[in-house]
């Protein structure tokens, strides 16, 4: 649990946001993330994010589902509880394909959802810091992570010049934690000096 310092700028227009992201990156600031009310096409490219590897995980989950289904059915129907279904061979792959398909989809679907939640650090009862509640409503919220070398005043004025409607500085824990957000947050705020060095 490390608490860091962030400069937060809120934009109300996509057309201002895109050049702002480009200029902020060019100026050498580290953008932690941009929170938007809806998916903004092309923003991921502008932020220079690498392509997600979630689909590779999905492929692996799918293979696990396929192997589970094939292994389990073939064990039941050829070894554990052998039955005669209309004279078909005991090992009849064709009849199992629907089940194998279903389990493939189920495993990859559930697995990818859970992996996605893990990557976004989301889970039930887990708290996360909200930089601006209006990020789910009508504002694009750009968050710049401060390093020991960052001149906070300069970063603030840079954001304002780039077109941010509202600029402020926040100390926050970006990871996840268990507990009550409204009570715990104050504790972190009190410890804020630790990183301001």
């Amino acid at each position, binding site marked *: 649990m490390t608490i860091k310092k962030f400069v937060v700028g809120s934009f109300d227009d996509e057309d201002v946001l895109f050049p702002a992201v480009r200029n902020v990156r060019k100026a050498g600031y580290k953008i932690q993330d941009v929170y938007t009310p809806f998916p903004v096409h092309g923003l991921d490219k502008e932020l220079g994010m690498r*392509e997600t590897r979630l689909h590779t995980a999905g492929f692996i989950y799918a293979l696990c589902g396929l192997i589970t289904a094939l292994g389990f059915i073939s064990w039941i129907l050829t070894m554990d509880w052998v039955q005669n279904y*209309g004279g078909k061979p005991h090992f009849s792959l064709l009849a199992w394909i629907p089940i194998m398909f279903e389990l493939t989809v189920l495993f990859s679907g559930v697995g990818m959802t859970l992996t996605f939640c893990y990557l976004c650090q989301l889970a039930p009862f887990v708290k996360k810091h909200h930089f601006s509640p209006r990020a789910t409503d009508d504002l694009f919220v750009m968050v710049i992570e401060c390093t020991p070398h960052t001149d906070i005043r300069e970063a603030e004025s840079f954001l304002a010049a780039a077109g941010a409607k509202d600029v402020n500085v926040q100390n926050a824990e970006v990871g996840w934690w268990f507990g009550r957000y409204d009570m715990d947050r104050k504790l972190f705020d009190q410890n804020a000096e630790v990183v301001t060095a």
Partner: protein
Amino acid sequence: MIRQQFEIPAKYKKWTYGLLAVGLVAFLAGVFVLGFSKDEHDQTRFWAGLLQNSLYFLLICNACMFFICINILGQSSWQTTFRRIPEAIAAVVPVFAIVSLIVFIAIVMGHQHHIYHWLDKDAVATDKILNWKKGFLNPTFFFVWTVITLTVWVVVGKKIKQLSLRADAGEITGEEARKYIFSNTVWAGIFVVFFALTTGSTIPWLWLMSIDAHWYSTMYSWYTFMSSFVGGLTLIALLVVYLKNLGYLEHTTREQLHDIGKYIFAFSIFWAYLWFSQFMLIWYANIPEETVYFKPRVQGAYNAIFWINFIVNFIAPILILMTRGSKRNYAIITFMSILLFLGHWLDFYQMVMPGAVGDHYSLGWYEWGMLALFVGILMFFTGRALAKAPLVPIYHPYLKESLIHHT
């Protein structure tokens, strides 16, 4: 300034006339060697080859119009920059409609009962199953419904094309744009509903499934439709890549190619889903009157073609087109398009041939010659249609959205 006017390159013309020449030679040789032959098998091979090709090319061209219509109904804008390409392919529908009609007239009036078993009056009189189907499978109904179908496809397709050409004439703004989109939607709706009544259900039963007159499957039409839809999509992809290579379609980018690739990938898998569903239920129930369709295909003479069909049209696209990178790669999309185009041609081959020529099938000079002839016809008329209208509908209300399209 963008290049709006497509001029048919000399190389394209050379290939078109080359294929047409090869095809015509094969066709004429076919007429004399097979068509006028005393051997009934040869005659059946001649007509079955014509039937397979004319139906395949008719249905894939019409599938391009269906592609435009579902995009209009979905209010999608991404395809606006290249929508003249499916339109140009769909402009060949009248040509193939006439070709198919001539082939039908020759087969039905010429009593080619090896192809359509229900033409044999003696068999219908004594056969219980054929007698049952008499109301649907008879020459009168066949021709009435075929002519209605072809007419509506051609007329509504032409209407939608005309609406599209309106976007070249001048600005469409405000209330007029809303009206323009609305009339597009109405005509696309009419086309799609009629398409569901024809390609989606009755027409493949009538034209193709009735070759195996005793057998029936409710999945058959969807299966045929998917085969032709993937075929049509591969044509669109090939032409997009070809025109981009020539320097046209400056505003059709990898983003659009990616979406075409997704279409091809998704519907290849849906094709396999229907292929398997039809096969598995019949295999499981194991009722003789149903397995009669799969007996020659899976265990008989068509064994190799049956499995090549499955591997080419399902295993290859699912493995090769799965990643994002391959759908955005011009070379891979071109390769897969050619492969799938031939793959679905082979799919139509194994739909038509077992019921028509049985074990005496061959995939020789005549079949490949017919393929060359029909590709030549397709290239000739598509090229002409492309050269007639500007390549990008510049005043289309959705064009801007298409230009900034991201996937």
